[in-house]
């Protein structure tokens, strides 16, 4: 069962983020394919993949005898909703206020709420 701590721990490592990028570019790769062009040992990649799997960021699917790795973006969507979306809204509102203020020039305006 993946939890948030595992998820952030999994994302904290540049090598693991690189693996996610490689799966994003090309989903459904074998271990051998993932090891190509990476400055990591096969054992290192295996360990990183296990951690990513534990965090539910990578899902394994067997196709015949091939073990394929897929990027699972669902936990990232949950991070977006929990940690990004609610913070970006006030910023966007502040930017929009600023744009209005600058574009309206010296039109008399009631004092605006300070952007949060």
């Amino acid at each position, binding site marked *: *069962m*993946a939890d948030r701590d595992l998820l952030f721990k999994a994302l904290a490592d540049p090598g693991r983020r690189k693996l996610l990028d490689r799966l994003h570019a*090309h*989903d*459904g*790769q*074998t271990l051998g*394919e993932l090891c190509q062009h990476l400055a990591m040992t096969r054992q290192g990649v295996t360990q990183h993949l296990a951690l990513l799997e534990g965090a*539910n960021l990578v*899902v394994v*699917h067997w*196709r015949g005898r*091939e073990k*394929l790795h*897929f*990027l*699972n*973006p*669902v*936990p*990232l*969507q*949950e991070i977006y*909703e929990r940690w990004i*979306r609610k913070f970006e809204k006030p910023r966007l509102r502040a930017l929009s206020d600023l744009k209005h203020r600058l574009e309206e020039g010296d039109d008399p305006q009631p004092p605006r709420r300070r952007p949060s």
Partner: protein
Amino acid sequence: MSAANRSQFIYVTYIRTTPEKLWAALTDAEFMKQYWFGMHCESQWTAGAPWQLVSGDGEIFDAGEIIEADPPRRLVIRWQHQNRPELKAEGNSLCTMELEPAGAAVKLSITHSIEREPSKLIEAVSGGWPKILSNLKSLLETGSIALLDAYRQSTTQP
């Protein structure tokens, strides 16, 4: 992609609910509208039954057939896009939903694949699924959804 001529993605989420409730959430049109941004599926949900994904204003976006229905474990849908000609031209895709108990939760895996590479359909639907699953999880676990406007920027459903 190591298997030639196939595009596929797998999305997995763990939802604190029972397989029966999750199955109902995946097959009940009214409930579906709450997490699928107003869209819903119409089907009898038995093997061989027709299946459609319908928008809030009644437009049929995707259509096909139930290939397998094993409640509350496994659902396989033959899925063809109807709305955009270039996606419709790609033909049938296959959407598999698998529900497995995992402790106090249910593991929901959605696999969507088509026998061509690259696929505009797979690319288009892949943007929608994480939002739908995230909403579904939130709705079943907390009773409310997180996102109301999934399609503001995405190209197509789901």
